[in-house]
């Protein structure tokens, strides 16, 4: 069983020091039990912000109310099994696990190891991610594992690895941003998604150097008002054109850091040739940003760069530019820009992606990604396989090869060549994956769906076996935040009823499936093994343990030894590439997979709201958050509303190649008139992902969430909606 709270050094006399369950900012919290809590829905814990470099004591509304999910009225506290009559009923743990064991054995005997696939989540602790990856490869012997982080960080990860040899999220601590003269924020609405982050932008705003690109006048774009910076509102899907124009200007006006380029990079000539084709006036007609503004931003960045006497500049990317079928190319261009100006691997400047999910970073480092082994090792590399196999005590030959990325994996489910059983852990793909009608159809075609969740999420409700698990305040572990900082999650209360940690469940299942050792239920023991498995890998945690983190506080990886102080600033001494240099890589702009058509002449973009998180499974269960944002809507400009002849609040019909739905319009000037925005937190008819397509970026497998060709019609009267959202009968293939 996990250690008791009192055994943890992070327990201040007044409460338990931990971090928020939600986003990658991982704001520090102190949790204190409430005497007599739980009765009549009273909270069981109070939440307070705790001073920490990332949040400086702040929390957003989601963090403040996070304890309410612990006592959600429909919290799962006992395993459930779907009976022959199709109804889920509570059963004992033994009954549930025996059932899963029998069904998994049956599928594997009939169809081989790849009959079972695993779908993980970016909210799982490092320990759970590690154990789940190991379980898939060692116990199931399946190559088919991937995770919802694919929808989040895959483009940035692919690009960072290609260009810099390293993907650690931000390779510098967040407070460094305060000193910069210019920060270029591409496609992130952090003022809404992670508000305490904004404190780190105060310095650059006071110097007028914040540049935000977003087709919406988002809360983050508003931070550029009153002389704090510049907002560029490019046509959706053309962020790469903006970047190509910035690259063009920096090269044409010779604003680059020659010394740095000569000493630390390769590939300048090919990049020059690809940027030469995008002079600002050409870019302007494609991206809708004035050529002069493009030049101005390029010069702002250059003037802020150390080689030209500036205090420092940063280029940061978010999902807005990454969730595209050219996401990897777009991030590559952002990195190219940072490299040309000599920003990367230098104190006070840099490039970084802003991770979305709480542990999106650690999840992929330690085994949830189809092609990766713990320590950011490659599953295709013989040495990497041998190292991990030795730690796991198995023959390297027995480890499966690389699987397939998430969207492809979901598309294979229940098909003759695909897996017939799926274990979902910490994910709600029925809401969060692209083209969710297709996802539902694929899940329905499975023989077995096992879901581990804390609440009956939309995916959980489709399960054959539903296993209740612990929440953040009920467990021990570690998370790796957006700056590659390894932090401790600590337990502040016992899990209710029969809820168990995924670590315990995996141990029980492994034992039943013939692997009685190697799956401790104790998080600190799992971490110790993770540390050994990561030793010598790119994400080296070998110098860390729960005990050390409790004693010395959080630490940035790599931490290759017990005396190593951690690496707040990565890349200072060179790039972990074969020749130690970063790669400048040429990029080309392609039209979106789903370009505008005469009958779909608008752009649909999707995104998050301040009050909700991801698929909303948690935050929709917090009454105050739900009250603030009860349902989906379609944000549009008054000019578009006028064209449709509708008023604020009236229903509209949105239609794309993937599906259609009806939602009320929210009319605001803060969006391009050629664009409609929909939040993706909602299930059923309000699910934005009924509309998105399943085309992905060829390099990273990232779905093109951020650009879908859209038709909008006024829908004042109820119109029959095709039956895309009802649960389909499960059929046996």
């Amino acid at each position: 069983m996990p250690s008791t709270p009192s055994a943890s050094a992070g327990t201040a006399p007044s409460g338990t020091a931990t971090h928020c369950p939600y986003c990658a900012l991982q704001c520090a919290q102190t949790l204190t039990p409430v005497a007599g809590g739980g009765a009549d829905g009273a909270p069981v814990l109070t939440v307070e912000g705790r001073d920490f470099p990332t949040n400086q004591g702040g929390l957003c509304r989601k963090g403040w109310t996070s304890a309410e999910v612990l006592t959600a009225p429909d919290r799962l506290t006992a395993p459930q099994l779907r009976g022959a009559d199709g109804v889920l009923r509570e059963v004992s743990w033994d009954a549930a696990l025996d059932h899963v064991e029998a069904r998994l054995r049956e599928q594997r005997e009939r169809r081989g190891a790849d009959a079972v696939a695993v779908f993980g989540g970016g909210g799982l602790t490092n320990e759970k991610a590690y154990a789940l990856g190991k379980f898939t490869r060692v116990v199931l012997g399946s190559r088919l594992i991937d995770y919802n982080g694919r929808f989040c960080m895959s483009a940035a990860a692919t690009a960072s690895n290609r260009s810099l040899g390293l993907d650690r999220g931000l390779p510098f601590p967040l407070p460094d941003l305060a000193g910069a003269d210019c920060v270029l924020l591409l496609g992130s609405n952090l003022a809404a998604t992670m508000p305490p982050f904004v404190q780190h932008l105060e310095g650059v705003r006071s110097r007028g150097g914040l540049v935000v690109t977003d087709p919406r006048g988002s809360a983050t774009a508003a931070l550029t008002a009153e002389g704090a910076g510049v907002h560029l509102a490019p046509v959706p899907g053309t962020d790469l054109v903006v970047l190509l124009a910035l690259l063009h200007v920096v090269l044409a006006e010779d604003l680059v850091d020659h010394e740095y380029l000569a000493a630390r990079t390769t590939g300048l000539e090919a990049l020059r040739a690809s940027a030469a084709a995008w002079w600002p006036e050409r870019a302007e007609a494609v991206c809708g940003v004035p050529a002069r503004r493009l030049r101005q931003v390029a010069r702002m960045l250059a003037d802020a760069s150390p080689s030209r006497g500036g205090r420092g500049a940063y280029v940061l990317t978010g999902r807005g530019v990454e969730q595209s079928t050219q996401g990897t190319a777009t991030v590559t261009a952002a990195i190219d820009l940072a490299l040309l100006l000599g920003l990367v691997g230098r104190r006070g400047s840099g490039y970084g992606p802003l991770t979305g999910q709480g542990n999106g970073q650690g999840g992929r480092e330690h085994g949830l990604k189809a092609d990766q082994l713990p320590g950011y090792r490659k599953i295709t590399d013989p040495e990497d396989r041998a190292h991990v196999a030795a730690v796991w005590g198995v023959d390297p030959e027995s480890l499966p090869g690389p699987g397939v990325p998430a969207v492809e994996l979901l598309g294979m489910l229940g098909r003759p060549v695909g897996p017939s059983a799926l274990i979902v852990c910490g994910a709600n793909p029925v809401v969060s994956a692209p083209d969710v009608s297709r996802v539902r159809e694929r899940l329905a075609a499975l023989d077995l769906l096992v879901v581990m969740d804390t609440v009956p999420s939309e995916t959980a409700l489709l399960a054959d076996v539903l296993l209740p698990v612990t929440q953040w305040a009920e467990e021990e572990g570690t998370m790796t935040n957006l700056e590659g900082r390894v932090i401790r999650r600590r337990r502040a209360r016992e899990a209710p009823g029969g809820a168990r940690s995924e670590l315990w469940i995996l141990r029980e299942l492994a034992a039943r499936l013939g692997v009685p050792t190697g799956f401790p239920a104790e998080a600190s023991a799992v971490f110790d093994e993770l540390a050994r498995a990561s030793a010598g890998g790119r994400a080296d945690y070998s110098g860390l343990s729960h005990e050390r983190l409790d004693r010395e506080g959080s630490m940035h990886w790599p931490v290759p030894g017990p005396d190593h102080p951690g690496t707040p600033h990565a890349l200072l001494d060179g790039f972990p590439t074969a020749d130690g240099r970063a790669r400048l890589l040429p990029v080309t702009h392609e039209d979106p997979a789903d370009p505008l058509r005469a009958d779909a002449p608008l752009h649909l973009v999707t995104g998050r709201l301040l009050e909700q998180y991801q698929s909303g499974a948690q935050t929709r269960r917090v009454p105050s958050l739900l009250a603030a944002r009860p349902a989906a809507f379609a944000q549009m400009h008054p000019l578009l509303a006028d064209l449709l002849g509708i008023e604020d609040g009236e229903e509209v019909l949105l239609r794309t190649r993937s599906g259609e739905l009806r939602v009320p319009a929210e009319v605001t000037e803060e969006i391009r008139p050629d664009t409609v925005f929909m939040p993706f937190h909602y299930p059923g008819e309000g699910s934005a992902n009924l509309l998105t397509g399943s085309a992905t970026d060829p390099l990273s497998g990232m779905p093109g969430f951020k650009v879908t060709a859209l038709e909008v019609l006024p829908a004042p009267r109820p119109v029959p909606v095709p039956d895309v959202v009802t649960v389909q009968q499960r059929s046996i293939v």
Partner: protein
Amino acid sequence: MRIVVIGHGMVGSRVAADLAAADPGARLTVLGQEDHDPYNRVQLSSVVAGKADPAALALEQVGPERARVLRGVRAVRIDRASHLVHDELGEAHPYDRLVLATGSAARIPDVPGLRAPGGAAEESPLVDGVSPLKDLDDAERILRRCDGGGEVVVLGAGVLGIEVATGLAGRGARVTLVHHRERLMERQLDRDASEIVHGALETLGITVVTSASATGVDAPEGRLETVHLSDGSARPADLLVLCTGTVPQTALAEAAGLECGAGVLVGEDLACPGDPDVFAIGDCAQPPEGASGLVAQGWEQARRLVESWRPREEESRAPGPPRGTGGDLVRVKAVGLALVTMGRIERPGPGLHAPRSVRLADPSGGRFTEVVVHEGRLVAATIVGDEDAAAELSAAFTLRTPVPRDPVHLLARPLAARAAAPAASAADMAEDDVLCQCNGVTKGTVCAAVAGGCGSTAEVSRATRAGTGCGTCRSRIQELLDASRDREPAPV
């Protein structure tokens, strides 16, 4: 498959690089008359303006392992019967398919004194100080003659003439822009727009002379000194830049018996009607929809050609129809002057389904906008002096996104999203307006906390959570604290 490309300019280099990538089996030969790697010709006006480094113009090109590229070698004859291209060095290059991408040449007007005496009129070089702007060598020549000052005459106020005039003026030269018509850029601008551009150019320090042409040039000792104009005036000049149009390079094709109009005639399939193995793309070609003289059209032709030749199971097919490239969008790259035209402005009489057009002319503001909307789309526009409108309308035109039924809306406000207006001051907010967005705390709640004794923003934050997210509302909390203090009677 042996493919020979003649011309290694913007379009020839693109088609060669893309062919090499699309068809590993293709054997490619490229003949380029210029002794340079392919470069971005469009940027030459920026080079002249000092806004682009000539060393930064290199375009993507096919690698030596994939193609034989001959630089500084001119093709002199096409022998269609034996499928050979002869070059000036005497080598013959066999082809299965031949792509002409010879571009266009600057049109040199027939002005007495322009060429050095002796030699045949067409062949002899221009006198020192006179140059068109067509290639890198021209740009370098102009830069040598005018590096930041001097007297310059620019002949021709088309798109290029305006770019060159503003570029050189921006570098400190005294520029006279001479145009033979009354309207500047007469193919794109009407009288009102032209007048506003005229005014804008004068604001930039350029002397604009319309309805005049050059009648002679004095160049004692072969070096330009004076340009004589048809209005009788004489302008001292260190440099005369000829921006008097371009002519497609069709001589090779014509000599080979291929049908030529203004350019080499090609069908929808980009092949010459008389010879299915010869193709023409870029500025030298004359396709059924007409040539624009803009690079977007040539690049789109290159894409279509490569796409149709891409090796696939079936036989190669004819190229698909041209894709909209915002074809006739003309963006003048003038320093200090936003000027864009797109589509054809037509002004039909009243009618229910006729295009609707609205214009705004603001001569003293240096601003002019005219938009034409038809069936919910922007079909034409001219924008002078408003860079936001220029960018937004260009995108709407290129993407064919829906625009307001009433075109007035397009003039009244820019299309793109504007960052939210600065937050209202706390005093202007109603009690139930949300003051702290991150935590959804209303002004009323904060006021109650202040009334309840909170004396600092930190105390208010502790009591209400307001200000604990992004922190940008702390100034408004402070405002409420100050206001409450002011209301309290001063302690005696």
